[in-house]
């Protein structure tokens, strides 16, 4: 029986190799177009450009009133005529997704890549976002296994595919349990307590009623920025992998640390929140610039509150002037 089983196992193995070839030849591209169109974009842009710019919605979003609608990467491209810069964007993306795109670039690699470092994306609010399942499903086909195995993993939904309710539960747990450990004083030890305090805050309208819009925004600032980036943060690990890949393959890596609305964070919550944002920025700059020798373009406090197109939320979406300032900063670093 053992001989019989071994023979069948051998036949099956040969068959699987053949099937993988058939799948790759006839079906893989179609599946990539359907589930991971960004990687096709990466391959396309790689051929035509010297520098690839990876970003989330910060690069695509413009203000309605902007006369010039160019993205940060396009503005940078204009500022650096000696380079061709191509961008690959996807809303809500983060280092865990960029990592897969970058590792799946084709040779020859571009001379440099720019990856947006979005402070908010390290926090629980973003890490446990309900968009995560969709983002993760988009990179299953890029995993380092045979194409056919990846396709089967996609069918089994074998990726971080938790239900939104479970993610929310985990996020609330983190907000409740993880205590701040900053070398400076913060008014509350956890996000939850701070958020509660903000929810009971005293933003008052002219008519004497509570200004719920402002209260909601203040709470959102706390939930978006009141966290402490530590070395074991999953996004830090993802960025570390990007760094290691680029260093191994001699690709120049630039981290474009995006601007955050520190002015409004101060106005709605207080100076302690800005201190936290700076602390996290310093952690990232120190880790990647000083320790790993990567170029980090620090835009954190580059812009004023009115440079942001979403005045009522904490997004990294900028008006033309804001985008231009970031592009100028980036162009200097890339030169």
């Amino acid at each position, binding site marked *: *029986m053992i001989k*019989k*089983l071994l023979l069948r196992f051998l*036949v099956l193995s040969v*068959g*699987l190799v*053949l*099937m993988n070839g*058939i*799948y790759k030849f006839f*079906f893989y591209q179609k599946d990539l177009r*359907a*589930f991971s169109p960004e990687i096709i974009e990466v391959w396309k842009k790689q051929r035509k450009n010297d520098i690839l710019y990876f970003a989330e919605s910060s690069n695509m979003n413009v203000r309605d009133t902007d006369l010039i609608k160019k993205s940060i990467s396009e503005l940078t491209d204009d500022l650096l005529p000696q380079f061709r810069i191509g961008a690959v964007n996807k809303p809500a993306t983060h280092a865990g997704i960029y990592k897969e795109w970058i590792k799946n670039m084709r040779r020859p690699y571009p001379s440099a890549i720019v990856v947006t470092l979005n402070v908010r994306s390290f926090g629980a609010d973003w890490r446990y976002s309900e968009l995560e399942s969709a983002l993760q*499903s988009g990179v299953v086909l890029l995993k380092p296994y045979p194409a*056919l*195995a990846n*396709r*089967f*993993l*996609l*069918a*089994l*939904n*074998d990726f971080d*595919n938790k239900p939104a309710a479970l993610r929310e539960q985990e996020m609330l747990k983190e907000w409740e349990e993880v205590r701040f450990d900053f070398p400076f004083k913060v008014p509350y030890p956890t996000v939850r307590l701070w958020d509660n305090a903000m929810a009971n805050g005293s933003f008052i309208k002219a008519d004497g009623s509570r200004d719920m819009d402002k209260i909601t925004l203040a709470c959102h600032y706390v939930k978006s920025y009141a966290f402490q980036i530590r070395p074991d943060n999953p996004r830090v690990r993802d960025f570390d992998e990007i760094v290691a890949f680029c260093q191994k393959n001699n690709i120049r890596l630039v981290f474009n640390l995006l601007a955050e609305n520190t002015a409004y964070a101060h106005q709605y919550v207080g100076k302690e929140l800005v201190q936290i944002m700076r602390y996290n920025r310093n952690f990232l700059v120190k880790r990647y610039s000083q320790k790993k020798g990567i170029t980090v373009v620090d835009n954190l406090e580059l812009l004023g509150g009115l440079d942001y197109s979403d005045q009522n939320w904490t997004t990294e979406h900028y008006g033309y002037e804001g985008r231009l300032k970031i592009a100028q900063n980036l162009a200097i670093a890339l030169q």
Partner: protein
Amino acid sequence: MLFNSLDYLFFLPIVVILYYLLPHKYRWVLLFVSSCLFYMAFIPKYILVLFAIIGIDYSAAIWMEKLQGKARKRLLLISLFANVGILAFFKYFGFANQTLIDLFALFGKEFKYYDLGIMLPIGLSFHTFQSMSYTIEVYRGQQKAEKHLGYFANYVLFFPQMVAGPIERYATLGEELRKKQTLNYQNLSAGFRLALLGFVVKMAIADQLAPFVNQVYANPAAHNQLQVVAALAFFAFQIYADFFGYSLIAQGSARLLGIHIMDNFKTPYFAKSVGEFWRRWHISLSTWFRDYLYIPLGGNRVSTWRWALNTLIVFGISGLWHGANWTFIIWGLLHGIFLLLEKPLKRYANTLSTFLLVCFAWVFFRAPDFPSALQILKGVCTNASIKYTWLDYWTPLMAVVLLFLLEFSYRKERFDQLLERLPFITRWGIYFVLIFLLLALSGTQKFTFIYFQF
């Protein structure tokens, strides 16, 4: 644990290897532990519900054997009430509440909703029915009470069929679990074939149909007549492929351990009457109702009116067994009515008419509520449009064609048995086609098995 998960694809081979490595006398422990682990992957604490069922029925059967007459009957009733009580508490409490609210509202009164915040333990309807069949058989003297708690626990818990059947009798599964199984090529080969086929039917057929059906049922008004009609037909194939696929994986998994479990389906959509459909669809449930409800009610050896009533009772309860919602009761009653009408209209019954009636009834099974079901049926008759392309239907149609091919070969002989007789090259050629379908062309959204909710 879901069959269609990577966890199960690791879990099953590990259990199979350990099973054959262990001496026979310890295998029940392995099966017990692995079944508990399998079940606890869903909601761990609900294993206690299963332990309660096992404890009640195990004890009841042993005592029952020692008693006679009324005391014996009383013990049976206690056991049945306990099983039905557990089922009612978890499955029908919310439904009863909602029905009372609606009833009170009819008279302009208010009834307070009592939310216990409980979820239905997965597969509860299946294991309560399986366990009840055992106590009934012991009561009837057709089955000896099992003295070994481990074997009885495995009968209720056996992981391949614990969450969605087939609902086995102790005389078959209990004995199979007791048998000393030896590792042999035939079992491994048959198990592999059945499981492979089951995965293909579930993942490459049912899961390819599901997105289309879900989209139409979620908003029938936004779809044209053809789309609604297609969704109706596709759901018939989806639910069949879903449940049939599950049953095949269950059979295959059990067979890898040398254990045979029954066929739950026999090409149901080839049935020429609704009565025949029920002899081919979810056979283990139909026979359960026949043996433990329909025949005790008098079956067909009663007056015509009583027979009609018996039929409606059985199908109404069968509907309620499926789900705690009026739509399921309507679905069950519709089948009962079809069956009653079939007798005088026998000459009109054929495969097509049966399929159409079954599809019509599925609308009530699939729709979340009665108004939605009516909206779907309205969609069948209105909103005619030719604004569609064949491309929209390409994937689901291919899935249906594949199911039809499998079914066609199943008409005379089970497909896996047919495969067994084919020459090596042809057989392996078919395996490769099936494996390729599974690996490369399965649906990309994962859907839990529809019958898991019951």
